[in-house]
Each structure stands twice: as C-alpha cells, then as structure tokens.
C-alpha cells in the first residue's frame, strides 16, 4: 500500500529506547525477549522467503529461459529480450500501458483535488457526497465492468441513448479502435477518483487554520492562498497518490480482461494482460517473465524518478 519507507519517528517512550545490545552482553531476560521477538515475526519471515524472495529470484531466472511448464526451463540467455524488443506488438502494448497510466493518473488527481476542495467546505451533506464519490472504488470490478459494458453498448447502451436524444449518432465505444482506450480511461476516472479524493480530504483537514488566518491578515486572495498554502501543504498527499496510482495503473488488468480482452485489434492490451496471455494462454512462461522484468524496471524507474524529483516540490520531503 504505502510506498514510503520513512518510519515516523517514534515519539513514545516505549519505542524511543531502541537499544542495540550485543548478544553476549544481554541478560537472560533480554535474550528471552529477543527470542520471543523473532518468534512473533516467524510467519512473516517464512512467508517473505517462500512467497516473495524465492519467487522474485525465480522470476529473474525464468526471464532468461524458455519454459513451457511441461519441460524444465532451458537457459536461452537474452533470446526472450531480443524477441521482445524486435516485436511490434510488444512496443504497441508497452505504449498503450503508458497511454492508460497517463490517461488515468493526472486527470484523476486533478478531479479528486477539485472534489476534495469542494467537499471540505463547511456545509450540509458533505458526508453523503464523500460516500457517493467513494462507492465506485469499493465496488467489485466485475460488477462495475458489467454495468459499464452496458453503458457503452452501441445499440442499447445508456450513453448512446443519451446522445440519441440530442441527435448524435454515438460511436461504437469499446468496439472501435480509436474510442476503446479512452472509454476505459473514462471509466477508470469514475472508479478511482474517490480514493484520491479521500486522501486529499484527510490532507486538507490536517492543514492548520492559522496558516490561512495569517494569509488573510496579509491580504492574500483565495488564489494566492491556494497556491501558497493549500498546494504545498497538500503536496505529501499528492505525492503519495501519484506514486501509488502510477504503480497501480501500470499493473491494470481487470477492466481489460473483463471488458475488451485487449481488443479490438489489441488496442487495449496492456502489459499485465499481455503477460497473462503469453504465460497462461500460450504457456510461454519464460517470455512472459522477461516481459514482467521490463514492467518491473519501468515501474521502478518511475517510482525512483518521482522520489528524486520530489525534493523540488513536496513539502517537508526529507530522506
């Protein structure tokens, strides 16, 4: 969930005393405490090695092999990457993943920020609004996809019915090469705006009122207050949403699998769906793993890039 690795400084006496005793210098009681400390971590430690570290290493290994599940993996060095980088479909899919991620994330953030600012007003009904805008986020993606399949249905769909009223002959939405991805992105805004909004709302509540009071005294107008108080104070929340949303968007799968199966003509195939198809439909596990490596590298570059750049704009960004 969180990508931040900063741990809030322990403020309580309990954790403040963080001794680093050597094993030989420890008393019997302290040793007992240490042993129990490790024991309580045991399920997590075991799972870390079995379900995370092990598979991670295996993923790297598979990427350099030819593996179809029936025969043991055969080491083929860089062949998978060679095939991948000379394959037009791969580059198309790679580009479409960016199209999806950058179609989704910035717009969602702007929309969510606007919503949060409106809902943060002191007025009636804000709790209801908060709930309403958040509901799509907690809905089963399958149910949401089914409803939206219908919204986008060319003949009986809700959207084209509405357009019909104003005399527009609506497009084929998900069945058309040009409109398929934008349609999914539009639905993506609907599904994810509530989550970002909730985080921004929490951030807005945390801005001390005195800052605004002081700004008003100094004669700052609302726009100045927004750019010089709200945005900087909210920047950690914006940063958090940006990083997690980009990571999530690069790994999008459900809507593509459920609504278009990557079509028409592969224009809505993104990386994870492509990995799924190659690995589990064509049983090209090695090739799919190589693709997963590329996805991993892409996500890492973006995350680290945002991290480095964060110094320039995120308020109080230390570390």
């Amino acid at each position, binding site marked *: 969930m969180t990508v931040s690795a900063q741990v809030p400084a322990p403020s309580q006496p309990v954790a403040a005393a963080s001794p680093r005793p050597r094993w030989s210098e420890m008393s019997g009681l302290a040793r007992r405490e240490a042993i129990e400390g490790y024991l309580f971590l045991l399920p997590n430690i075991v799972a870390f090695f079995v379900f995370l570290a092990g598979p991670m290493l295996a993923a790297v290994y598979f990427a350099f092999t030819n593996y179809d599940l029936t025969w043991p993996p055969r080491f083929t060095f860089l062949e998978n990457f060679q095939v991948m980088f000379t394959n037009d479909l791969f580059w198309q899919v790679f580009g479409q993943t960016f199209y999806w991620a950058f179609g989704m994330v910035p717009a969602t953030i702007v929309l969510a920020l606007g919503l949060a600012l409106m809902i943060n007003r002191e007025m009636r009904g804000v709790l209801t609004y908060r709930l309403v805008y958040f509901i799509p986020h907690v809905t089963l993606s399958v149910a949401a996809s089914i409803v939206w399949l219908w919204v986008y249905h060319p003949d009986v769909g809700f959207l084209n019915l509405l357009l019909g009223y104003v005399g527009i002959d609506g497009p084929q939405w998900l069945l058309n090469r040009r409109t398929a991805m934008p349609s999914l992105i539009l639905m993506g805004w609907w599904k994810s705006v509530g989550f970002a909004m909730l985080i921004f709302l929490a951030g807005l509540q945390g801005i001390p009122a005195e800052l605004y009071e002081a700004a008003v005294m100094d004669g700052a107008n609302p726009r100045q207050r927004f750019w010089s108080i709200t945005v900087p104070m909210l920047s950690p929340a914006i940063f958090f949403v940006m990083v997690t949303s980009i990571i999530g968007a690069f790994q999008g799968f459900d809507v593509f699998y459920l609504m278009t199966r990557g079509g028409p003509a592969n224009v809505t195939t993104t990386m994870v769906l492509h*990995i799924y198809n190659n690995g589990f439909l064509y049983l090209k596990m090695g090739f799919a793993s190589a693709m997963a490596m590329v996805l991993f590298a892409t996500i890492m570059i973006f995350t680290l890039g945002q991290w480095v750049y964060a110094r320039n704009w995120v308020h109080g960004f230390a570390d």
Partner: protein
Amino acid sequence: MAVKQETLQPARKLEAVGQDGMSKSSAKRVGDLFTHLILAAGSIVMVGPFAWMLSSSFKTQYEIYKFPPTLIPESIQWINYLVVFEQTALGRYVGNSMFVSLSVTLGVLLTSSLAGYSFSRLHFPGRDKIFLMYLGTMMIPGAILLIPSFVLMRTFNWIDTYYALIVPGVVSAWGTFLMRQFMMSIPRELEDAAYIDGATRLRIYWTVILPVSKPVIATLAIFTFMGVWNELLWPVIILRSPEKFTLPMGLAKFQSRFPNRTPWHLIMAASTLSVLPILFLFMAGQKYYVQGIVTTGLKG
C-alpha cells in the same frame, strides 16, 4: 500516530476569518449553492450506473430494450432474482468467496498483530532495520510475481485448491506496518501490571494488547476482506473447477455465457446481488476504512 480517531468532519472555519460577518455569510451561501450544484451533478454520474443496474434488475427482458428507456420499472420483477439463483451457482460463489476472504482476513490479523507487537514493543537486535526492509517489500509490484508464484503453487500441487488462494495471502507487510504504528502508542503501564503478575508475552499480547487494538484490527480486517473479495487475477490463474469459483469469477462467467441476446435483466440482478454484501460492509465500517487510508496516506 495512527491511533487518533479523527473523522473527516468538515470543521474548517475559514469563512469566519477577519472580515465582516454579513456580506461574508451571503457570499458563502452563494458559494455553497454552486458547490452543491456541481457535487450533485457529479453524484449523478457516480451513482447513475448503479441506479441503472438496480432498476434494470427488476425489469422484464422486453422492457430492457424499450425505447425510450424507463427508470422506474413498469412492474417489479422479483422473479429475476429467483431465476438468477436457479440458473447460476451464485449462492455457491458467494459462499466460496466468503470462505476464502474470511480465512485470509483471520490469517492476516493474526500474523500482522503478532509482528506488529514484536516490532513495536519488544527489543531485539536489528529490529528497526528488519522493519524498514520489510516495508520496502511493499514496493515490489505484484504483477511480476505472477508466473513464479504460479509455478510454486504447481510444485506444491495447490493448483485448483483454496490453499493457493489463502496461504500466500495470510501475511501482509502493510498490515504489519498498520499494527506497529498503532501499538507504539499504547501506554507501557498497561502491560507492566500484567507483566508483574507473571504473565507471558503471548498472554500479554492476547489479553492486554489485542483488546485495546480493536480499532486498528477493524481497519485491517475491512481492507483485507474487501481486497480478497474483489481479487480477480490470482483466482483466474489458480482455479479450474467451476464449483470452486469465487464470486468475481462466477459473475464474469455468467456474463460471458451469452454471446448473442444478452439477458441484461438477469445479469443486472446477479451484479446487484454481488455488490450488496461489500457495500453493506463498507457502510458499516466506513469510519475504520477512512482511518486506514489516513494512516497510510499521510502518516506513512
């Protein structure tokens, strides 16, 4: 710290600042009106699809295709819901999803609270370093583990079993983080008394720490349950037998069964049924859900 039970009440008193009351309050009223208009219009977009789903689930197939469409069904067709239960194994899928989600949730609560207790209140060499490293694992995108995890499940002979859905899911770095943040703020005195009475650490964890950690347990339970309940990719890869399908898979299968003349009224009834449990859970635990988001997003 994670413990503060701040709810998101709009409490900012910006308007009261430094200007004369009369003109300000009428300006605020106009502003409120505009805000309401925009937010209400947006709300229609947000809940519109659901309203449409609900309304269609009560229509006849004939009425579905009627033009112009009706929002309120001409006659309420409860029978659609009966047909759904008869024609599909929806009840079974719900049961399967319930079993898997509850198992994972219980497991995560147990392992995360134990680890959180250890990281927050016990002292041992390397504690904070291990914690930081463990937090770092949250940055690993799950998609890259897909293939090796599948191969691992295959070597365990866990394909098409619930072990594959449950066992790898019962630990959570995020859950551990959440628990640790909360438990760090529990006063020492609380456990000291029990400790003097000769209670073991496991006993203190169970009788002292867990009872006061109820809010964070609720938060973690809701997040975990909803996450597993909604999961699609992993079950799709693991499960083969239709009678073991989880709800999202079963619903997807039901929807894809009709290539031509789609019985939208039945599909909408099935979708409505699948959305309801999670919606009730969210509404009941909204406070804890929001708390989880606040802890992660702002204090992480």
